[in-house]
């Protein structure tokens, strides 16, 4: 944890965090910032697409159930913009449709310990970097 905190802000990976639950989103953003990420938040799919294009985003953390566009649709739209950016689906549902899980790098269920979520983000970031440098 200490090593994370002492990192230069220029090296903090940026997480785009999308959820329609304002309290849950706010708390999750604080937790991620505390864990060494720079966080951008949005409440729905269209906002997510705007923010994704306007900012340098390293990883996307998506909720599934949202008005207008569900997480799967948002993920497919993001892939069209940039197919290489890692996307994590963070859903309250235990099982998601196949076409949704195949559209993202990782599916996680809400309620897992924050440390595990952070580790998962770092792991997809590592993969992404490797792919990016390859």
């Amino acid at each position, binding site marked *: 944890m200490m090593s994370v905190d002492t990192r230069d802000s220029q090296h903090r990976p940026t997480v785009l965090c999308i959820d329609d639950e304002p309290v*849950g989103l706010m708390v999750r953003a604080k937790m991620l910032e505390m864990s060494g990420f720079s966080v951008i938040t949005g409440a729905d799919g269209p906002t997510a697409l705007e923010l994704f294009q306007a900012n340098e985003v390293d990883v996307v953390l998506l909720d599934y159930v949202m008005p207008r566009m569900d997480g799967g649709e948002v993920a497919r739209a993001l892939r069209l913009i940039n197919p290489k950016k890692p996307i994590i689906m963070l859903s309250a549902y235990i099982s998601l449709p196949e076409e949704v899980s195949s559209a993202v790098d990782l599916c996680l269920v809400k309620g897992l310990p924050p440390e595990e979520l952070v580790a998962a983000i770092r792991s997809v970031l590592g993969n992404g970097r490797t792919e990016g440098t390859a």
Partner: protein
Amino acid sequence: MTPERFRKLLWLSLAVPTALVFVMAWVVAFEVGQLRQALGWVDHSDNVIAESRAVERGIVDAETGLRGFLITGKQEFLEPGRRTTLAAAHFSRLKELVSDNPVQIQRLVTLLAEFQKWQSYAQEMIDLRESQGDYTDFERNLEGKRQMDEIRTGFGSIIQVEQALRDSRIQRANQLDYDFKLSLAGLSLVLATTLVLFSRYQLHNLAEQYDSALRTAENIAALERQRKQWFVTLLRSVGDAVIATDAEGLITFINPAAETATGWNDEEARSQPLAKVFHVINADTREAIEDPVHKVRRMNAVAGLANHTILIRKDGSEININDSAAPIRDDNGGIIGVILVFRDVSRQIELERTLRTTDRLALAGRITASVAHEIHNPLDTVGNLLYLIKNDASHLRTAEYAELASQELKRVNQVTTGMLSLYRESQAPVPVSLTDVLKGVLSMLEMQIKKKEAQVTCNSPQDDTVEGFPGELHQLFTNLIDNALDAIPQRGQITIECTSYHAQKDFCVTITDNGYGISSKYMDRLFQPLFTTKGENGTGLGLWVSKGIVEKHGGSIEATSAGAPGESGATITVVLPRRFPVHTILDKVPTA
């Protein structure tokens, strides 16, 4: 041969011989008349001859008497002469007899005149003898003799003529007799021949007709046998169980399907009273059901027997059946038997039960997912808050985070108690608030509502309590609102109206959407099981199960749609009575 033709044939067979015999009798009668007439003429001639001889004899007697008187002078000799008056009477009779023959009449008139002349001569001679005159004068006597000879000759010729007439008449009679016999023989021959030929023709005709009638009857009998065989094979082959009885309800036919269903074979069941073999009770009350034969006779019409019927088989095992009974009528419409058709629906009932369970399991799955969603969200937030509290070295915001965490936990509690209580099972109907049910349903469907950005409005009265099974009502409205959500476009509208009417006895819930509506061609099948327009995304159970639930609660459900393309959506109307109908409690105990 038709009965009319046969009657005609019979009539001809009698009429023709009778007519022939009549003709023959007429001919015989005519000829007998002719013969009798001819013989009558012979008799007539005999009479004329006899009468002529009698008159001649009288005249001769008178002459003899005159001679005797002239010789003896005795008056006694004149006695015959006095009888000449009698001779005159004979003359007139003879004249009548020969009145048909003018020649003979002429002769008689001449003879009478000569006789009268002789009578004058005889009187003259008598007078001479009495007055002692010359009565022996030769010339005078010769004159008398000559007169007498002429009279005799006259009579002789009359008799001779009559004799000739008689001879010719006898000959004619003989001829007639001969003709008569000949014609009789001829006629008899003709009659016999005609009768023989006619009878032969008629018999031949009759035999042909009989043969043809016999052949027709044989053909009809063969056809009847074929038809009977056809029907028996048909009835034996059908999958439905068929039992037929006579008017008294004794079994006359039982097909293999019925043998299997009842456990009685043909041999055992035949001639048994129907109630013994077809032992049925009401599935709900387990009370005996009216004997189908009696029911059909009482109603005098086809009778669908009571629903939920259980047939108790010969070995005591039970099967659920659907059945109907129909009367068999004679030409006059009288009932001569009853035919009973039924089928084992145990498997169907089992299948329907499975389908209902499937729908309930699907709902249970959705509720689980929904509950998981509602729990995982706050759980996630609480986990993150604990992480923040743990890792915040300054502890400045610990109290704030703890308060947030406690609020999230409250939310979890609300979700579980609220949502799961709606799905609780009960063995008896309990008071249920429709508003609570609808709220629970909408909260469970939140994800779909959010995704569609649907505008859902729900209006219900303050007192919205009905008696029912909360889990099933939840299932009912989930299915209906779920359908509406599927039908509406993005940002579509769903309006749920709950109103009480019928003097507060019933509730009416209408769910109206502005979706694509229901095609009129699907209307008939809408509430049938396994019917879906959603392809692989639908089970085809929702509306069928919903209907079952509504009916169990004593209510009704119907669907209406504007029908025209572009017109807004469909409306499902559910009517639920406030009080749960007692008689259906036993009907279907919750199955899942």
